[in-house]
């Protein structure tokens, strides 16, 4: 007996965990990893699309193009000069720029070939300009400008960019908000997964819970035991899902950067996204913490 006592004393006491070692929650960490992966991607898509929609709106709201669809090249050239002069004299018009023939050729090349000479065909002349006017006065100013240019050339007309890019900007913005809706559903689904995992863990370890309950453990002590382990599982899943999503975002970002389209490039992640996105795994762990706590407390309240 004395020898045994010596053995016991020699062995440093390391308290056993009140719950069995290993995962409490089965596949929950991997489900959370997938949820977090999709949540981060959806959030990133939402932020990028909203950013793109704002950029588009800002770019097109003030911009107009005056199109002079005059078949006679000489008449067209004179009309362009007179309209540029008119624009220069008009108050609230800025950044007047005649679209160069080279640019027109480049834009028409896919349809008419690269050896096109603008003088050979009656291609309308284009003049870009910014209309500096309060939003409420913009339509009236555009109508007045249209009337003024038509007075110079009957073949001229003012085309506000907002009339054809505006619906696209609104569509992009709507898809962006839809992404945030998807994020909200993901958060709810993550909470539901944790609720199911917590119920499962409670049912699996009911025997141990009953024993420590009868020995005087409070609900708070029991919940804390489970919560710590479930938080670690959730943290693991959230970190893995976040890492996967960031890798995908960086890869997609590189692909977007390689695309020359202004439209595509406008839908890039704004700088603050890199502050928002890392908060998602923390929020996910918070949702898991709250869900586990509420579920376990409710389960324990059903016993005496």
């Amino acid at each position, binding site marked *: *007996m004395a*020898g*045994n*006592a010596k*053995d*016991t*004393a020699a*062995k440093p*006491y390391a*308290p*056993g*965990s*009140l*719950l*069995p*070692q290993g995962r409490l929650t089965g596949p929950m960490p991997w489900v959370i990893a997938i949820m977090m992966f999709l949540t981060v991607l959806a959030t990133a898509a939402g932020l990028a699309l909203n950013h793109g929609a704002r950029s588009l709106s800002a770019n097109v709201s003030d911009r107009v193009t005056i199109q002079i669809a005059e078949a006679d090249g000489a008449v067209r050239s004179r009309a362009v000069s007179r309209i540029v002069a008119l624009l220069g004299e008009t108050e609230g018009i800025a950044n007047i720029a005649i679209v160069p023939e080279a640019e027109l050729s480049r834009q028409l090349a896919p349809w008419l070939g690269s050896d096109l000479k603008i003088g050979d065909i009656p291609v309308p002349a284009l003049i870009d300009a910014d209309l500096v006017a309060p939003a409420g006065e913009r339509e009236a100013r555009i109508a007045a400008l249209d009337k003024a240019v038509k007075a110079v050339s009957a073949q001229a007309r003012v085309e506000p960019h907002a009339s054809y890019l505006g619906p696209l900007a609104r569509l992009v913005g709507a898809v962006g908000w839809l992404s945030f809706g998807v994020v909200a559903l993901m958060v709810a689904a993550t909470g539901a997964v944790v609720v199911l995992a917590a119920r499962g863990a409670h049912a699996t370890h009911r*025997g*141990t819970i*009953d*024993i*420590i*309950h*009868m*020995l*005087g*453990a*409070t*609900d708070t*002590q029991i919940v804390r035991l489970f919560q710590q382990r479930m938080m670690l599982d959730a943290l693991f899943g959230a970190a893995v899902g976040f890492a996967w999503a960031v890798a995908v975002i960086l890869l997609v970002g590189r692909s977007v950067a390689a695309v020359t389209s202004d439209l595509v490039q406008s839908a890039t992640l704004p700088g603050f996204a890199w502050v928002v996105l890392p908060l998602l795994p923390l929020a996910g762990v918070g949702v898991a913490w709250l869900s586990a706590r509420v579920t376990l407390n409710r389960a324990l*309240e059903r016993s*005496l």
Partner: protein
Amino acid sequence: MATIVQFENVGLRYGPGPETLSDLSFSLHEGAFYFLTGASGAGKTSLLKLLYLAQRPSRGAIRLFDADIVTLPRARLPGFRRRIGVVFQDFRLVPHLSAFDNIALPLRIAGVSDAQLRAPVEEMLHWVGLTGRAHAYPATLSGGEQQRVAIARAVIGRPELLVADEPTGNVDQEMATRLITLFEALNKLGTTIVVATHDYDLLGKVADARMMRLERGRLTEPPHPAGAH
């Protein structure tokens, strides 16, 4: 002696069936030693469940440690449970904890630090003759060893009330006598002890013990000195 437990017209019913316990009225006094006897199915375990707060009665009144247990808020029950030591009939050891950790459980729940609990747990292990089995898990312990771990766990917190359900059912006569002697020693330190048993040989081993008898859920013999009938 002060009254530590008081039952008045207590009835207990599980679900819609007949009452398992009916019309129980008795008092237990502080520092006394009680044997609860009765045939199998008489309701001994159910009565003990009321004592260690695993159940509330279906009717009647129970006062324990001067508190009305029937109306006591659930959140206050753990505080009362810590004043009660329980030896379950089926031991209820935590299977993934060693004998040492099982015995240490009440102290850990009460917030005793790991450094502080070592000495009392080793004393308990010695007390029940399991020093050499401190790191053994319940599955590797014999029935008698598991019972001794369960007893050590029940008494380590020096409870004011010790409730034991057939605590000598799985040990030989020598160990049974030893455990009852240990209960008696604890009783002399002031713990009120209630032992449910159908081993009538035990009754004469504790001087001044009182006996009560249950039959079909009714108390046919209220607490009285063991030698009186």
